[in-house]
């Protein structure tokens, strides 16, 4: 009984990690940009949900409105970041980490100055409150919703990458920038679109997180380290790896936490990732490239 409950807890945590990491798997995994402000884009998504609910009022309608709006807000912030700073730094990936860290600091303080330091609350719609009882097991509706949302995002992203002309261009640029440009693909436009989508996914994750936790200026910092670990463990370049890694990390955290404590579980997960990278430095799934490393 408990094992099944923990299994669900692990999958659910995995879906949260996946939402947080999915955008990163594009911007970091595909473009090599270490965007430390990704967490703050999530925060922006969460505050979008707060503002939308303030305007609309009805919790259900505002949640459904906030999801696409959060995507746009996160995406636009990402676009702005790409156009002003990141685009001049594609040759210096490590430096993007520091620049975006600065951006993250500024965004946090902006949120503090605009929305005030105290946390704010977004009400969950009535149809998401409580739990679904299956065989004596209570599955919280919000958790089910986030699982479904994560699944939708993954499928949509995978389809977009695989089946659309845009996806083909993105993959081409990732695999060989010079050759893609030589074939007539505008890598500038492709970069911007990729960054828009990746950051937009952070916005969606932020909206989803309002169902689970607090909405405050430091919301993003709670997730950023975990999200990067997921991408690193999952490997570069494919959505598949991120999905598996997020699920695995979620399950590990849930089961370690059940048998030990939350603190010990977190440390164990970190250790497990480091050990795993010893075995597979390229992560779970990697695209074969011609580089030596």
């Amino acid at each position, binding site marked *: 009984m408990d094992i099944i409950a923990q299994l669900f807890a692990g999958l659910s945590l995995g879906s949260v990690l996946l939402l947080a990491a999915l955008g990163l798997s594009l911007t970091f995994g595909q473009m090599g940009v*270490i965007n430390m402000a990704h967490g703050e884009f999530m925060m922006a998504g969460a505050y979008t949900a707060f503002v939308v609910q303030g305007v609309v009022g009805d919790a259900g309608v505002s949640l459904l409105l906030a999801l696409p709006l959060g995507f746009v807000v996160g995406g636009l912030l990402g676009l702005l970041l790409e156009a002003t700073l990141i685009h001049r730094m594609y040759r210096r990936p490590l430096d993007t980490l*520091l620049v975006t*860290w*600065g951006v993250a600091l*500024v965004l946090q*303080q902006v949120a503090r100055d605009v929305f005030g330091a105290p946390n704010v609350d977004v009400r969950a719609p009535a149809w998401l409150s409580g739990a679904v009882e299956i065989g004596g097991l209570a599955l919280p509706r919000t958790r089910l919703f986030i699982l479904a949302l994560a699944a939708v995002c993954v499928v949509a992203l995978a389809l977009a990458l695989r089946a659309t002309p845009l996806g083909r261009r993105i993959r081409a640029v990732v695999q060989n920038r010079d050759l893609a440009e030589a074939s007539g693909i505008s890598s500038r436009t492709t970069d911007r679109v990729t960054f828009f989508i990746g950051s937009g996914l952070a916005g969606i994750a932020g909206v989803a997180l309002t169902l689970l936790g607090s909405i405050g200026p430091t919301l993003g910092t709670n997730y950023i*380290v975990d999200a990067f670990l997921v991408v690193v463990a999952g490997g570069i370049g494919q959505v598949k790896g991120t999905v598996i890694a997020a699920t695995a990390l979620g399950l590990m955290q849930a089961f370690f936490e059940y048998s030990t404590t939350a603190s010990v579980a977190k440390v164990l997960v*970190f250790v497990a990732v*480091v050990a795993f990278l010893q075995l597979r*430095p390229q992560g779970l799934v990697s695209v074969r490239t011609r580089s030596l490393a």
Partner: protein
Amino acid sequence: MTVLSALARPGRTRTLAAYGLAAALLLLAPTVLSPFRLDLLAKFLCLAMVAVGIGLAWGRGGLLTLGQGVYFGLGGYLMAMHLKLADAGPGGVPDFMLLYGTGQVPGWWEPLRSPIAAILLILLVPAALAAALGWAVFTRRVRGAYFAILSQALAAAFTILLIGQQQTTGGTNGLNGFRAFFGYDLADPANRLMLYFIAAAVLLGMVAVAHQLATSRFGELLVAVRDQEDRGRFLGYDPALVKVVAYVVAAVMAAIGGALFVPIVGIISPADVGVVPSIGFLIGVAIGGRATLLGPVLGSIAVSWAQTSISEQFPSGWIYFQGALFILVVAFLPGGLASVAGVARRRRTAERSRA
């Protein structure tokens, strides 16, 4: 030849003059600063020690380490544990363990009762951890960004461990309330002055070591590995070994900084060693000029000073200022402020040659 005219000259003369000037300034600082400001300066010097190491590992070696707080913390905590045990006297139990712990000193604290063992452990523990981690990561050719993220995860895990083991590490409170430093009363202004001089001497020593390393064959290899790792490998060198050495040296420097930070500031807590302070160590290095000798030190001291003075005036202003510094310097001036001087000098020379 005056110091100032030497400063205007190129190359080693300039380095030497700058070094001499810095030493002289550090020697004279106590005469102009109040005891409170002198303590602050001593604290900044400890943070600058971390910066020297980062300058070597990141600036010369391209190893962006986001986890220097771990080594800073190891040094600091080991020193703090020794001071706590020394305060408690032979066989005594530190006060916080009586309050929050079992009232007994755990076995792994015991070796730190001896001052000599404490000093050795402060140097050896961080070195061993850095060597093990570095070896594991670099021989597997883990990429730069991966290394950065792993080192950050290390800092996160280290903080969680420290906080979770409250009975033996003090938890979020950290360790504080030290009375003496190797027998010298910490409340005595004369001893605080002594601590300042020790910090200044150690920092100058580190800069000299960093200079020696950077100008040696090892330093050249390090830069070579940073810029073209594969070529280094094809020439028969082991890039992993070169990186590990740089990483270990940086770790030990951070640990020494942490160890001196403790008696000077009087506290070490998880808030000083986690993810955020670890990134904070980088900003001074980036601003001063990561690949220069004195850049990291001067940048680090300048940033610490700015943080103190700006936050005294505008609390939230500091955050914006820090963020803006990161953005502007790293994006538009990757060489740091040191490169401004370089650019200006080149321009001057160019004008002179045209004239």
